[in-house]
């Protein structure tokens, strides 16, 4: 099985018109925009970030880590430059020498924030690779996400992201994939003879799926259901909190993120889940696993695992039994940035691939230095950024080509779609496979 090509093409069309569905932000004065941006900076800077802002030596090495720079050689895509509004604000208003800097520097302006929109939204996937190269140990990407939030609050978020973010905030759905659509998709599975347990009152494992799974990556949804049944655990999908994606996070809207996180936490607590498994969705994992507790205000009363992590552990525990894939083949594994570099899941997906008996060919930049697919951070929805994204995708494509692997295994719907789009644009013939699908298709009887 592969992703639903018909829905995928429809989806591409939806993306193309996404921006037109929202009205541009108007009526904000420049002062108000700056004030809002500053409010974000003020509330989000913390000691470690301050240290990073103080330590930069402008060596420019981070440019080399960034796929947008690496492919275009345009200096404005240098990661640390994307932090400039924050740095300027910090030095003038929060840093220890702020009284001195105020004498010799200028304040940020609405114009600057507008200008930075392209830098933080179109040419940054928040992949965190720049944070890995910095000789000073500066977490550059963490700061770019703060600038994103500031630019968003100032009213300069790209229209496509605003549309999705708005939908998730107001309706709790993404791309129109609501509870009814989910129920319909699951009903279809039942009709095909697959047992699905939804909305259980009590469950040990609560599974989140990416909204894409309802329409486009249905193969992954089906595989997930099959695998969970195979494991024989008490699991459920909740129609009141099934959405894994957090457009609030990648768009930089704190309120939206807080709401979507809270919805998941409430559902998990109400069904007494011990483990919440996030589907193949990068942001979904990070938002809950590493950021969820902060939004919740205290440690989460359950464990959060990405599906690759969960399955890898089930494999080691002997509950997941897979057979070797029928045809011996070579694959390369693409670590989704938010699950790998930012999330810390590396071993489990590899253990799964090993159990499946495929030949894993690692890319030249493996695990935490892995090149991003170029679509993260909502860039894959951003029409204006399409040419840039395609350029950045080239870093990934050549890394894959270099391995000589017959197919690419990914474990993130967003990556998967970026690969599909990039592959089509580049006229590149290579199967893009979902890890979950691969496991689901090769369960031992």
């Amino acid at each position: 099985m592969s992703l639903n090509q018909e829905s995928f093409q429809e989806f591409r069309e939806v993306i193309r018109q996404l921006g037109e569905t929202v009205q541009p932000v108007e009526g904000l004065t420049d002062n108000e925009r700056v004030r809002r941006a500053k409010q974000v900076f003020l509330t989000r800077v913390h000691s470690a970030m301050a240290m990073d802002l103080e330590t930069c030596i402008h060596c420019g090495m981070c440019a080399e880590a960034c796929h947008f720079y690496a492919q275009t050689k345009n200096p404005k895509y240098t990661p640390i430059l994307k932090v400039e509004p924050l740095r300027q604000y910090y030095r003038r208003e929060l840093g220890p020498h702020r009284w001195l800097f105020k004498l010799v520097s200028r304040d940020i302006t609405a114009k600057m924030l507008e200008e930075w929109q392209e830098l933080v939204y179109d040419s940054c996937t928040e992949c965190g690779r720049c944070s890995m190269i910095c000789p000073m140990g500066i977490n550059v990407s963490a700061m770019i996400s703060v600038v994103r939030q500031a630019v968003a609050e100032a009213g300069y978020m790209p229209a496509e992201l605003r549309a999705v973010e708005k939908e998730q905030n107001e309706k709790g759905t993404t791309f129109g994939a609501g509870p009814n659509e989910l129920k319909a998709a699951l009903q279809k599975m039942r009709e095909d003879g697959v047992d699905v347990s939804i909305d259980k009152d009590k469950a040990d494992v609560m599974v989140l799926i990416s909204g894409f799974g309802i329409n486009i990556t249905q193969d992954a949804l089906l595989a997930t259901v099959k695998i969970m049944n195979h494991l024989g655990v008490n699991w459920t999908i909740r129609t009141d909190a099934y959405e894994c994606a957090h457009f609030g996070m990648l768009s930089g809207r704190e309120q939206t993120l807080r709401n979507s996180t809270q919805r998941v936490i409430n559902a998990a607590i109400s069904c007494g889940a011990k483990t919440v498994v996030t589907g193949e969705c990068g942001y979904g994992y990070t938002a809950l696993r590493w950021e969820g507790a902060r939004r919740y205000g205290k440690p989460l009363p359950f464990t959060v695992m990405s599906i690759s992590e969960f399955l890898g552990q089930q494999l080691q525990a002997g509950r997941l039994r897979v057979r070797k894939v029928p045809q011996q083949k070579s694959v390369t594994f693409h670590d989704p940035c938010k699950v790998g570099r930012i999330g810390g899941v590396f071993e489990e997906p590899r253990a799964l691939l090993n159990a499946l008996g495929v030949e894993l060919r690692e890319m030249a930049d493996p695990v935490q230095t892995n090149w991003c697919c170029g679509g993260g951070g909502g860039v894959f929805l951003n029409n204006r950024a399409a040419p840039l994204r395609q350029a950045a995708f080239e870093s990934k494509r050549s890394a894959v080509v270099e391995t000589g692997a017959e197919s690419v295994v990914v474990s993130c719907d967003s990556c998967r779609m970026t690969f599909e789009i990039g592959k089509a644009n580049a006229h590149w013939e290579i199967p893009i496979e979902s890890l979950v699908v691969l496991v689901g298709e090769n369960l031992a009887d």
Partner: protein
Amino acid sequence: MSLLDFARGPGLHWAFIIFVFGICWRFVGTLLIARRIKLSTPRRTDNWLMGLKAIETRSWPVEEFHRVIRFQHYSGYIWHISFFIVLFFFQPHILFFKSILGISWPGLPNDVILVVGAIAVATLVALLGRRLSHPVLRKISNVDDYISWLVTTLPLITGFMAFAHVGGRYETLLALHILSVELLMVWFPFGKLIHAVLVVPSRFQIGASFGRRGVRA
């Protein structure tokens, strides 16, 4: 009071005071900004170790990065090492440190210092050339970068002049050399040179925070 007397006396005294004061101010002022409380369950609990490890690992970029930053990496090393050799192993400098710290150590022959000093200056010039010509560096550079370059280069240049007695009377050159070092010390806490101090906590932090997520940073 002659220029040299000023440089060696009150100039040095105040430069040290500003140096120490500025560093403490900036360091403590950065460190004491509210910390972020981490409520998520760590994947690993040996954050301290990961932090310490990052201090070392960030000195040696992994192979995949090393390929693209080879020049910056080696020029950085050459510059820092040659600078520290000149700073700490030129015999008159050792006398200077002895007068402050009370301890001394063996120095290097002047010929060696001259060569190493020349390498340091050459590297600085090359790095400035790169900063002025490389699109990325030109784009991200600000006044701080150029001032910091200047105040770092001046002591080397004036040091050479004082050593070779070129360009003026020795006491004037020596005074200029000491004054240029004082300028460096006064600028140090306020510009990017502070990285010499902050690099340690900064690297530690990234190692620790990625470390708790199970990522070797």
